[in-house]
């Protein structure tokens, strides 16, 4: 008989793996992908394919030729990054090649330069997105309008996002009530269903909520970050709205527009770049919500979710250091 193997306890494992977690996230992103394709057609599909393919390719190349380690492509995390990056850009024809640059930045600088999955301090997809936003400001803020279902041509008419409409109107000195009543502003139902302008993954609140519920049920994420993020944004914007309803957007529109839901449920909850303890996560969500509202109302950009999450990513190590879990008996 062969010699017995020796190891420390425990001798059994839950069978949980990074791979399983990442593929669950991918599955949770499918509703958003389908809605994006339904609303924006071929462009959305092509952008997603290019983004995912480029993320995988760059990760493989970097691991093979620069890091010289066995590839970790099959853990599915490059696909998560690719999908999230694609979801965060407008579904216009010009983005199809621009997103490839975003993929290089997201995977190359955002993730692999730090040593790969688990070592990156910032959410790679957001690093890629913010790079694109700063480098290609025109293409990144040219939004396609939602017209018919499954548009199969690459040509798109351009429109504006609800947040863009509001920002521009306020800059022009319009009253908020007038802006909300104007034809450019979609109804709340359309905002909920995603029949609005915007990055193609972030428009449909319903699809995001379905994906998030799946992740919660499979225990990939916990409620702490999404709930504290969304609640903080709602309460803070609610206070501002009560103070001056002609200048500040009401809480419901605040939550449902822009990338807030997608950010709160899928970007801020990225386990690698968010705090570990429950109280740390609540603080993280609070910071994200607060910064988002500040940037939206007083910043140069109409949207602030990406910046808010990246800023909070930067303080995550500090949060981990100072906010400890509750010990058993202290």
């Amino acid at each position, binding site marked *: *008989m062969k010699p*017995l*193997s*020796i*190891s*420390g*306890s*425990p*001798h*059994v*494992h*839950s069978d*949980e*793996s*990074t791979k*399983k*977690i990442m593929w669950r996230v991918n599955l949770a992103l499918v509703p958003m992908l389908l809605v994006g394709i339904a609303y924006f057609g071929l462009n959305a599909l092509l952008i997603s394919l290019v983004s995912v393919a480029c993320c995988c390719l760059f990760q493989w190349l970097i691991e093979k030729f620069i890091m010289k380690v066995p590839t*970790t492509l099959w*853990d599915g995390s490059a696909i998560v990054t690719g999908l999230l990056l694609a979801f965060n850009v407008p579904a216009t024809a010009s983005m199809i090649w621009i997103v490839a640059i975003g993929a290089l930045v997201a995977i190359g600088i955002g993730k692999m330069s730090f*040593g*790969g*999955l*688990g*070592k990156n301090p910032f959410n790679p997809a957001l690093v890629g997105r913010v790079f694109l936003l700063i480098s290609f400001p025109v293409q990144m803020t040219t939004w396609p309008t939602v017209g018919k279902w499954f548009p199969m041509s690459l040509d798109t008419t351009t429109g504006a996002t609800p947040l863009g409409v509001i920002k521009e109107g306020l800059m022009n000195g319009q009253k908020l009530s007038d802006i909300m009543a104007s034809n450019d502003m979609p109804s709340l139902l359309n905002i909920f269903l995603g029949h609005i302008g915007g990055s193609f993954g972030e428009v449909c609140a319903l699809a995001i909520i379905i994906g998030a519920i799946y992740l919660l049920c499979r225990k990939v994420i916990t409620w702490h970050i999404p709930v504290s993020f969304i609640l903080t944004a709602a309460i803070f914007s609610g206070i501002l709205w009560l103070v001056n309803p002609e200048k500040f957007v009401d809480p419901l529109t605040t939550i449902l527009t822009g990338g807030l839901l997608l950010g709160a449920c899928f970007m801020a909850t990225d*386990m*690698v770049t*968010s705090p*570990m*303890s429950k109280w740390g996560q609540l603080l993280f969500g609070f910071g994200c919500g607060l910064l988002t509202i500040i940037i939206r109302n007083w910043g140069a950009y109409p949207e602030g979710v990406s910046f808010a999450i990246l800023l909070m990513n930067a303080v995550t190590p500090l949060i981990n250091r100072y906010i*400890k*879990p*509750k*010990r*058993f*008996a*202290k």
Partner: protein
Amino acid sequence: MKTFAMGGVHPHDNKISTEAVIEQMPLPEKVVVLMNQHLGAPATPVVAKGDKVKVGQLIGEAQAFMCANVHSPVSGTVTKIDTCKDPFGLAKPAIYIDVEGDEWMESIDRTPDIKRECNLEPKEIVAKLKEMGIVGLGGATFPAHIKYSVPDGKKAEYLIINAVECEPYLTSDHRVMLEHAEEICIGISILRKALGVPCAYIGIENNKPEPIRVMREMAAKFQGIEVVPLKLKYPQGAEKQLINAVTGRKVPSGKLPIDVGCVVSNVGTTFAVYEAIQKNKPLIENILTVTGKKLPSQHNYQVRIGITYNDIIKHSIGELPENTGKVISGGPMMGKAVCNLDAPTTKGASSVLVFDESEACRNTETNCIRCGKCMNACPMGLEPYLFSSLVKNGRFEEAGKNNILDCIECGCCFFSCPANKPLTDEIRLGKNKYRGILAAKQKR
């Protein structure tokens, strides 16, 4: 339903040997009795080579404070007093005995009658526990006479009987409760008297409905014994977690259960206490599960201590399957992997668990993705991921400041880690290093 406050995991319980009635393991030709089968200093041999011994005769005497008597499990001739490698490969002082017949000490009552009356005073009970070499059978093998001598200034309020058996696979406690419920309750009454507590609570997890029913029926016939069903969650059988689950109290860091007025005893120990006090039978036998998903049959045995693992395997399943990967003494979560099957069993042995090669294999380690599953699983509220990196970087004192010594090594962190990081191994290393640092500082 009650359970402990934080953390915990749900491994598959795999209790496949619950139906196997406890059988008597036949005597082998030779036994080896280790002198330290308990926590603390080894016992001192009081027999010499060539001496004839009887079953239950004292052969190793407790001379240190933290020590327990050792008795001969067989009758025969002492052939050697030497060292012997224990199941984990460490040499320990031992007495070798050739078995001749099965002649018991006259003082031991071997009749099957149940003796219910106990007229001993608390002090006499504790003295008899010491004489009979009783140790805790839950795994730590803590000498019982020390546990039941409550220090001055402290008062026991709760006696908690640990019948949780939260480790997967193990069924010895399960079987003992089904087959010896009355003896257990008498044992509990004796311990209750020794401590002077009004009520004893038997904690049983709700995946054992049959033992809960049997113990409830039996406890109703006794005064001051209550069965507390607990919600299934590992590691409910860990002392601090069980106290928390049953009483809601929390044993502070670095303190003992008695500091919050609790004494915890394993259910198997209460059976041994009954036999020792009422039947004058020293601790020379324990109940042991032989199990494994790939084994042809599952067994529960009453085994004399000193029988080797090979003898047990030979008698129960013939020989180990061809693709055996690991043999574990104890449960899969906290048990130790056996490297030496020629070693004898000891008082604390609770099982022989056989894993095939695929079950024995660890998955490949990948990068930590900081998912926090280890932290959420930790029943002590610690940060295993942090210890892992601190220990790797040699920052043991920082690990100490983050309460690494509070770790109970239950294995929940490693069990739940999606990156398959050997967190429990790293924490064990860190604890030992940090203890070394503390000891060195004290010396200086």
